[in-house]
């Protein structure tokens, strides 16, 4: 039984788990943005919504056995490992490695996480904090003129004279 559950976990939940949770977080955030009454709560919902999207993007860039996307520059270790690898298959592939010897090491693209989603999400985080800051400023202005942050109370104040 344990084995069945474990295999179920590994086969159908784990490989897509990030995507499941991203959808759940996105639904929580979207629900809060639409239905919460308090303006600050709406903004917390907005922040959760945005992080859910970031979670989607970052999950895309993950590779099973990859490292962070920084090439270790003073990496003597990498170099040694690489040299050993080269020794091992030097007999068969000496000629193919010949061209790359001038560089530090051959870069195996599966050893590094995909950097593009990270870059995109740096931008998205910054956009998120800018939106949050501006929205907080606007909610302070709303509080300054209505004296409350609750949407229904604000609408009550507007009703007598408002015509729309």
């Amino acid at each position, binding site marked *: 039984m344990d084995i069945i559950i474990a295999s179920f976990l590994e086969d159908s939940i784990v490989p897509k788990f990030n995507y499941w949770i991203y959808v759940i977080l996105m639904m929580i955030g979207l629900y809060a943005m639409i239905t919460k009454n308090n303006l600050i709560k709406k903004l917390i919902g907005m922040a959760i919504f945005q992080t859910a999207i970031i979670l989607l993007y970052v999950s895309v860039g993950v590779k099973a056995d990859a490292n962070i996307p920084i090439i270790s520059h003073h990496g003597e270790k990498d170099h040694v490992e690489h040299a050993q690898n080269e020794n091992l298959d030097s007999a068969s592939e000496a000629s193919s490695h010949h061209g790359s010897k001038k560089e530090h090491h051959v870069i195996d693209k599966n050893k590094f996480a995909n950097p593009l989603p990270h870059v995109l999400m740096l931008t998205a985080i910054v956009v998120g904090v800018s939106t949050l800051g*501006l929205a907080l400023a*606007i909610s302070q202005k709303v509080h300054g003129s209505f004296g409350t942050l609750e949407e229904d109370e604000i609408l009550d104040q507007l009703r007598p*004279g408002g*015509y729309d």
Partner: protein
Amino acid sequence: MTDHLPILLLLSPLFGALVCVLFGKGNSKNAWIVSMISLGISSILSVFLLLKVLSIKAGDIRYRMGGWDPSSGYEVGIELRIDILAALIVLAVTLVGFINTIYSKTRVPAEVGEKGPFFYALIQLLIVGLCGIIMTNDAFNLYVLIEITSLTSYALIAMGNRRAALSSFNYVIMGTIGASFYLLGVGYLYIKTGTLNIDDIHTYLENENLWTSQSIIVAFILIMLGVWTKMALFPLHGWLPNAYSYAPSMTGTFMAPLMTKVMVYVMIRVMLWLFGADFVYSEDSVWSELIVWMSVVAIVAGSFLALARNDIKKMLTYLIIAEVGYMVGGAWLNSLTGQAGAFYHILSDAAMTFCLFIAASIVIIRTGESRLNAFDGLFRKMPLTMIGFTIGGLSMIGLPPTCGFFSKWYLISGGIESGHWEFVVALLFSSLINAVIFFKIFERAYFGKIKGIKEEVSVADIDMIPAEGIKSVPASMLIPLFISALSVLILGIMNKNLFSWISNALKMING
């Protein structure tokens, strides 16, 4: 140097904004001069850009940022792509920005006071964002630029009274939902294709034949939902009327003509360039039918809601919602005439909305009354303003010498061509309602009696700027009004040329 026209066009307002913030010193006059210069340069450069695009036969200009050449067929950097359609809209954006700056000369000190330099900085950054949206060929860059326009417009709207702050907050929520949906859609496309360049995504989808993949369909729905939220298509229009009508008047006159239209352009671009005509109009999908029906609902609902309003600016904003329905419907008609009509309507709607909003703002400022009875007897008191308003109104109804007639004509013939009779009926019906609305106003303006004092003071009126009295309107407001009214007529007279340019460009995209 002409190779660098697209980027120079963007940099001029960007530097202008920095100069406004640095050397504004609370003085609106300096900032006004700076933004006149920067937007003037930008408008001139966009004229040159249009001429350049028209002169080359290949169709479009491409500009690679950072000079990164593609690697194994895929763009690694960010690319700009400008064809005739983009150049026309860039010209419209920069010109509206420039003319609106003339209009704002006396209004900025009156409505935002010491924050004038920040206002001008934000307006110029908004123009940077809009021009960037139109020219970019990178799906993620488009998101960043959409957020630039959104953030500037949140701030510009919230600079108004307390109702403006509240509607700006609602706009923040709706706008973020829209932009995030767009970002999600781009993410889905990225997962399936591994690239962000719009042309490359299209090529990849074509090569791998991913059109029936569930992710691509969901990505399409998400991007469309995001763009529709941003352009206020009918069920998603909730934020627009309050935001545009309570914003400071010079913000309203700038944003009403441009924001929704640029998003319609983004929609056309996503439809035809990113997904391609084969996908969006494919026989076995229901998109085309469904969305034309949605636009029919938007047109009818927008017209009825406009008819029910008694507030001038609210009425105009609901008319914008109906017009968005025209453009969305036209773009989805699956006929070249319909697409061209939708595109033509972007330009003509920008011109006539600009004209109407300026005229309405002048009327509201001068009479201190924001309801329709402000127009009572105005033909005698403010004849020049009313001439401008009349031209805008006639164009909205769709009478011959104006551009509104021609764009509607192409839309209707597109509808007939593709057999969407419901769209044709909705268009004619909406024109009828527009005629009712505007002739009601014209009647008031001819025969109505001028009011002495207001009978009741409502909460909204307390927030209003006090009336400056019906006296001579300053030239800085009349000149923009006349330029915009003139452009309504010019766009109408040039309809043959415009239509042939637009349909040639669309033919090239459709292949």
